[in-house]
Structure formats: structure tokens, C-alpha cells
């Protein structure tokens, strides 16, 4: 412990000495930044402010920077005290720190111009402080910050402060303003005479670094420039970029941007230009952003264009499921399921599911003989395999044989999605998402339901969550908004949900996961 303290003190003295002796301001700024990183990362806020206090009389030329760092230290300190629940210091010294924060940052801003980075960073910290408190001044300070960055970017060559501030705005949820600053950054680098291929590399680099917004902005410039050159040459590149952005379980990517690129490809060269793989990616991507009508359209296209393709079975099953339970088009749904069952020789998870769906639709319509036939065919085809689907078929058969109503949760789902009193808004009244969407056999997955937040204040409402569909081999939980499941067999599995409040059905939801 003692040696660590000695080491810190020696380092502190060393920094102080170096800053005092620094020949240029830039050199001193770098050292200050390094010192600040060291102190603040270790929550040594008071020591850092004291350190700056020692330097002040020696380097009057660095006063605005020292004011900025004092403000930054106090800002981080208040955040830290709250997070770490260091309440004694928070309540005893909080007001003093807040006052020092404000006066230091305001001084740093007043003593510098927008051409100096210190000015921009002091404005940024001031805004972060106000934003964190929802202070009414926050929008005014934000406007001032963005104006200053715009002026800075007009007159200075250096672009990194613009990007850093845009990043900070984005991480604070100020997406529109961040976008404006990213636009300034992109304008600046694209005006620097960089070739298209280099632009693509830069965009790809930002994508890899997780800065999706900036990556997209630079790709847009690349696409715009390439369009002027050779449209046809651009299409393969667009396919590659779109594939990069499609939905991924790890959260990387931007499915909406991917769809924008797919639409661009279609606009430039028609639907046919997408090969089976790209068309499948597009359909899958649309499915994940819950544009079910768009997904069904592309899956249907795949079924028609690539009947021997590797995605045929998945596409046909998904097109059928979406047609039935989202688009209320039972006729089309049956058409897709029947396509899957046409070839008696083929046995796959999708074919087995198609028999189940044909049985289910018939049972719902009251044609019990037809339903029974489909379920029996399923059992015959499955042999001893596909136990998750055969269990469902057996349960339905039992209902038919014992003249019992359909299992309650499933019946409620069919009523909500196919019933005469279908209310489209119910589909939008809850969000259902799964983690992950693509899973391995026996991998644990979770489906999470979130009803639209109709406010009820502190009056709690008990919702009933009625799960049904392919939920794995366990019984679905009663009245829980989380469904944990795993599957032994590959294939597409439908997750059905109805949410009921004391006043009746308030939402229904439908989702698909794929086991590979």
C-alpha cells in the first residue's frame, strides 16, 4: 500500500515537473491530459484538483485548460459519488463541488474562443452536467456547443475533436445533434480528396470499432460518389455492405440501414439482381425488424424463384406462419404449408411443422377430420424424431379424440390472430423479442414480452402472459413475461403470446427463432 502511494506521489511530482517545463502549450496539454486520465480513472478527484492548484501559479498560460480539468474532475466526482453511493461526501461536499464545477467550466469557456479545443470540451462537460440533471439550461448549452463545433470545423483542419464530441452526444442519446456533427466530420474528410476505396476502408474501420452511425455516414458518401462513376460495379459492394449491417444476435449491425441498402439495390437493378443468399438475408432482416409483410413478400419470392434452394423450406414455413398469424391470410398460409408437404419423400423439421400447422388451422376451422389426418400424417412421418412437434400434435389429437376444447393459451392466440374480432392494434400493443434468435440445439434462449407502457402510476396491474407454440419441451410458465426455452431439434420455431389484463386481451405477439 505504502509503495503504491509513494509511486503515485513520484508520478505526480514527475508530471508536475514536466508540465512546468513543457516548452509548448500543445506539449503541456498532452501531459495534462495524461495526468487527468491517471487521476480520474482511479477516482482521485480531490488530489487532481490539488495537483492543478500547485501548477496554477507556475503556468498562467495554461489557466483555461486547468479550469477545464477542474470542472471535468468535479463533474466526474459528482457522478462517481452517486454511483458509488458515497453519501457522506455527496451530501456534505456536493454543493461545493457543483459550484466549483460551474465556475471553472464557465471560466474556461469565457477565457477561450471556439478555435481552441479546451473551449469545446468545457462546453461539452457543462452540457453533460446540465443534461444529467435535466436542467432547463441544457438545450441552450447544447446549441452553443454545436454552433462552436461548427465554427471550429469551418476554420480548423483538425477533425478529431468534432468526432469525439459527436461520439459523446451520441452516447448521451442526442442522436440528431450527433448526426449533425458526424455530418461535419464526414464533410471534412470527404473534402480532403480521399479516394472512394479509402472512404470504404474508413467506413469499414468505424464499423469494426462499433461506431455504426459514423460508418453509415461514410458509406453513404462512398455510395453517392460511386453512383456517379459506375452503377453496376457498385451493386456487389452494396450487397457486401448490406450483409454487414443485417440483424445479428450480438447487437452489431443496423437492420434498418441494411434494408435501406437492399432497397437501393432493388431500385438500381430490380428484384432479380439479388441472389438467393442476399434475398434470404433481406427477408430474415425484415423479419427481425418486425416488418412481417415485407418479410413474407421476400420469403414468397424465394419460394417461387428458388424451389431447390437451400433456404426453400425455411422460407416456405416462415411465409406460411406470417401469412396466417400476422397477415390473417389463411389461404396463402395453407398454400405454403401444402408446398412443403407435397413431396412425400422429404422429411425435415419444416415439413413436420407444416403438417402441424395444417392440422392446427383445420382444427381451428372446425374440420376435425382433416386436422386429425394431418396430425396422424405428422406422427407417421416423424417416426420417433422431432419430439417437440410430435408432443404438440399428440396433445391436439387428444383434444379431438376426447372432444375437448383446444388448450387454452393456444386457443386464445388463435382467437386473437385469426378470430372474427381481430384487432390489428393488439399486435402493436406488446413487444416480443428473443435472445438469441439463432440458436444451437439445446442452447438456452429467452423470449421477453413487454406490453406497451400504458401508464398506471403506482397502481400495479397483474397481466397474464399466455405462451403457446413451439416452446421447447417444457411446459410454458404461467403468467411470466419471460419464457426460457431450448430445442433439441433444428428448424424454425414459432413463439406465440397473448397478454391479458383484467379487462381482457390487450395484446398478442408472434415471433420466430431458428435452431441450426
Amino acid at each position: 500500500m505504502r509503495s503504491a502511494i509513494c509511486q503515485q506521489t513520484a508520478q505526480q511530482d514527475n508530471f508536475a515537473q514536466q508540465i512546468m517545463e513543457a516548452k509548448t502549450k500543445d506539449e503541456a496539454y498532452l501531459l495534462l491530459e495524461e495526468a487527468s486520465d491517471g487521476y480520474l480513472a482511479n477516482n482521485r478527484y480531490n488530489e487532481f484538483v490539488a495537483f492543478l492548484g500547485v501548477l496554477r501559479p507556475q503556468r498562467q498560460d495554461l489557466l483555461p485548460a486547468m479550469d477545464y480539468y477542474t470542472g471535468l474532475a468535479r463533474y466526474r466526482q459528482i457522478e462517481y459519488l452517486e454511483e458509488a453511493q458515497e453519501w457522506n461526501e455527496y451530501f456534505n461536499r456536493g454543493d461545493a463541488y457543483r459550484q466549483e464545477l460551474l465556475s471553472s467550466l464557465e471560466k474556461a469557456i469565457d477565457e477561450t474562443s471556439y478555435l481552441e479545443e479546451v473551449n469545446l470540451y468545457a462546453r461539452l462537460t457543462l452540457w453533460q452536467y446540465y443534461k444529467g440533471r435535466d436542467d432547463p439550461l441544457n438545450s441552450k448549452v447544447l446549441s452553443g456547443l454545436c454552433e462552436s463545433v461548427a465554427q471550429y470545423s469551418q476554420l480548423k483542419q483538425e477533425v478529431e475533436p468534432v468526432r469525439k464530441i459527436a461520439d459523446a452526444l451520441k452516447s448521451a442519446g442526442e442522436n440528431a445533434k450527433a448526426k449533425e456533427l458526424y455530418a461535419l466530420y464526414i464533410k471534412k474528410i470527404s473534402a480532403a480528396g480521399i479516394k472512394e476505396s479509402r472512404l470504404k476502408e474508413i467506413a469499414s474501420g468505424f464499423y469494426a470499432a462499433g461506431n455504426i452511425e459514423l460508418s453509415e455516414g461514410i458509406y453513404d458518401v462512398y455510395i453517392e460518389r460511386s453512383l456517379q462513376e459506375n452503377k453496376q460495379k457498385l451493386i456487389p459492394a452494396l450487397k457486401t455492405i448490406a450483409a454487414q449491417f443485417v440483424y445479428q444476435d450480438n447487437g452489431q449491425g443496423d437492420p434498418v440501414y441494411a434494408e435501406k441498402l437492399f432497397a437501393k439495390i432493388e431500385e438500381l437493378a430490380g428484384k432479380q439482381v439479388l441472389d438467393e443468399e442476399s434475398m434470404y438475408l433481406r427477408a430474415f432482416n425484415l423479419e427481425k425488424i418486425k416488418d412481417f409483410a415485407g418479410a413474407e413478400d421476400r420469403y414468397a419470392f424465394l419460394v417461387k424463384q428458388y424451389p431447390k434452394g437451400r433456404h426453400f423450406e425455411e422460407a416456405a414455413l416462415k411465409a406460411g406462419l406470417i401469412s396466417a398469424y400476422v397477415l390473417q391470410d389463411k389461404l396463402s398460409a395453407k398454400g405454403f404449408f401444402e408446398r412443403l408437404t407435397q413431396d412425400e419423400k422429404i422429411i425435415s423439421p419444416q415439413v413436420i411443422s407444416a403438417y402441424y400447422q395444417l392440422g392446427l388451422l383445420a382444427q381451428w376451422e372446425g374440420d376435425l377430420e382433416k386436422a386429425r389426418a394431418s396430425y396422424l400424417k405428422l406422427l407417421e412421418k416423424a417416426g420417433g424424431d422431432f419430439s417437440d412437434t410430435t408432443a404438440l400434435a399428440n396433445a391436439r389429437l387428444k383434444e379431438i379424440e376426447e372432444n375437448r376444447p383446444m388448450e387454452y393459451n393456444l386457443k386464445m392466440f388463435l382467437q386473437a390472430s385469426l378470430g372474427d374480432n381481430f384487432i390489428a392494434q393488439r399486435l402493436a400493443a406488446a413487444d416480443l423479442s428473443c435472445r438469441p434468435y439463432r440458436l444451437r440445439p439445446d442452447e438456452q434462449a429467452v423470449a421477453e414480452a413487454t406490453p406497451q407502457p400504458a401508464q398506471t402510476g403506482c397502481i400495479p396491474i397483474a397481466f397474464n402472459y399466455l405462451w403457446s407454440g413451439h416452446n421447447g419441451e417444457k411446459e410454458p410458465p404461467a403468467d411470466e413475461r419471460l419464457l426460457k426455452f431450448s430445442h433439441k431439434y433444428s428448424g424454425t420455431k414459432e413463439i406465440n403470446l397473448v397478454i391479458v389484463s383484467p379487462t381482457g386481451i390487450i395484446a398478442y405477439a408472434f415471433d420466430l427463432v431458428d435452431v441450426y
Partner: protein
Amino acid sequence: MRLSLNKRFVYRISYIVYRAAGRKLILFAACGIFFAACLFGCSKKQLPKVHIQKLKNSRYQLIVDGRPYIVKGVCYNPVPIGKNHEYDWWNDPAKPWITDGKLMQEMGINTIRIYEPAKNPEAVKKVIRDLYQLYGIRTILGNWLGFWEYPSPLYGDKAFQEKISKEVLETVDLYKDEPGVLLWVLGNENNYSCLGRVNPWSTPEIESEPDPQKKNALRYKIYYSFVNRLAQEIHKLDIDHPVALGNGELTGLEAARDYCPDIDLVACIIYRGKSFGPLFRSLRMTFDRPILLVEIGADCYDAYLKKEDQNMQAFFLESQWRQIYENLADAQKGEGNCIGAVTFEWTDEWWKHNEYSAEGWNVHDTGSNWSSGSYYFDIKAENNMNMNEEWFGIVALSEEKVNGLYKRIPRKAYYVLRDFWKNPAKN
């Protein structure tokens, strides 16, 4: 607003004179007021004792007996340990309000909120008078507007409306002349029933509408129109106290703008944790009325670590009050439409977690009743249930009795708010 133009002008002059001249020039101010009153022929008319003043810069102030008044309130329902909400504390021989009023005065509280007065008017008047005469504490009186009626509040039913109107107007008539009364609050979170999820109600017209959004709009129209008619009736009966629309969050206020022109202020129930977000600006855009936050607060039980945490409560309350002050009429920044707030609540209520079990009323339950991510310190509690309804008091109840009352133990929030109110400017 209820002020006539002449009244407003006279009042504005008197207020400007008061502010400009200060106490040394009271005589001059009085002359100014008198002159202005004569000039505009209003000398016979008196300003209401309590009213809303819209300032030149569109900010709002609550004026009480001619002076700006910031509501620094608490919700008051001193149910002792072992009793539930049916307990008639108004007739408690130990007079809890005497002990509580003193503590409140020392803290800086100037207002209590009563959700609905008891049936015995003499007992209610006694409490209001004692608090006002002994400690200068005023009382906000509310009415549930039948929100908890079984099977549901039938706002679309004429007979139901008449029954509630009669009840409300009787209350106003009974207490309007009490000097300690501050204002009336109609309803609490009743607007949520218009969304059909809590205490749902309907009418044949609503039932025949297939579109859920239009169903909600119809319910809002019926409910808010009813509240507006009540406000009109109250104004006829009592010119001295403003009428507030009790409302959960800002939900439905875009409809209230159309159907509640006679409401003087909105009284919102807001539980948003550290910050109210853009609440004050949103209200300005939605329904430009002054706002009194009639329920804010935080519990002091950490449902994750399973222990009392007074600091957590003090942190949220101080942060909330800081923002309230930033949005008062005379603040340097902010919307200037806030007239104060009422913290929920004065003492813990031990009956709340399991209200149907009399045994549970003797136990300070640590079970959680609802979830709110805005109170983030203990949101990792099981099933995210982090709000402990029995632990909202800024004063705890000890099981030890003193003079027939369970001993009051102020929590940290009590002292933090006391210090904040003493010197809000330094924050």
C-alpha cells in the same frame, strides 16, 4: 383563469409595488393599490384569498393572502402501527397532527395534502385549524371522485356523476371558510381508468367503438368534462380557492386542454426518480396551466440489498426538489410554471403491503409492491420489484410509544430537505 382583467391589473400593480418597494414602503404600496383599485372601479371586489397569478412573462405563481406561496408539502395520513386506512386518526385522542405539525414546522413544511377528509366535519375542521393556527400549515383537500367505488367508477353514468358532485360540493361548502384551506384537488390518478387498464369503466357508446384509441378518447371526453363541470360548480360556491385537476403523470392532459377550461391548475402524481425530465416544458406545450406536484418521492428501502437506505431516499428527494425550484416562477431558468410540490409522505404506513391481513399491519413489511427503473439503485431486486410502499415516510415510526403516539424518527430526507429549503439558492 378565473381572474378578471381588472382584478389582474390591480393585483399586478399591487404585486409590482410590493416587490419593488419592499417593507419600508408599505404605506406607499398601500396607496398605490388603493389608487389603482379606485381607478378601475374594483374597490368593492376583493381578490380571492388563494389564487393563481399569471405573470407578464407567462410564469405562474400561487398567491395566498396577497403573497407568493411555494407549496412545500407532505401527504398526510398518520395511520398508526397495527391499523389500516380505515383507522379514524382524526379522532385519535393522542392528536398526532399536533406532534407532527411541530416537526413539520421545524422542517419548513407549510402544507399538508389530505386525499379525502373524514366523514366527521368537526374533527376535520379541528385538524385544519390546529395545524394552521399553531404552525401556519395549510391544508390541500382532495376527493377521490369515486375512483375506488365498487365495481368501478362509472363516469359515464348520470346518477354516478350526480352522487359524486353532491359529495364534492358538500365538502367544499363545509370547509371553504376555514382559513387553513389552501385549494381543492379533484381526483388523483383517475385518468388511468380512461386507458382501460385500472378500474375500467365503459358506456354503450364506448363499447360500440371498435378502435381502442377512440375508446380512450371517448372516456377522456366523458371524464374530463365531468371534472370541468365540477370545477364550474365549485367556483360558483367558493371564489377563494383554486381548483386543481388531479392527474397521474401528464397522461390525458391533451384531452383535458379541450374539456377542462375551468380548471385553475393541474396537480400531478409523478414518480420519475432523480429527475422529472422535460415535464414542465411538456405541460406548457400540452395544457398551459400551473403545476403542483401533489405526489413525488422515493422509498427508503433497498429491495436489492434488503435493508433500509435513508441516503437513497434523501438523494432522490433532494434532486427532485432542486428541479422544482428551478421551475418556480421566480427562478432564473426553467419554465416558471411550477408552484411547489407535495412529498409522499409524512410517516410510513405499515398496513400497505398486505392490506387484507390485520397481522401484517403490525409488521414493517419489506415486500415490494411495484417496479420503477427510475429508482435505479435497487432495480436489480427480484423481478425488478423495487418500490416498497410501506417505506415512503420521511419520518419513520418507532414501535415505542410516547404520549400515546408511536414515536416519530425523522429520516435523513427530513434534514436534507430542511437544509435545502433554508437555502435553495446555493444549490
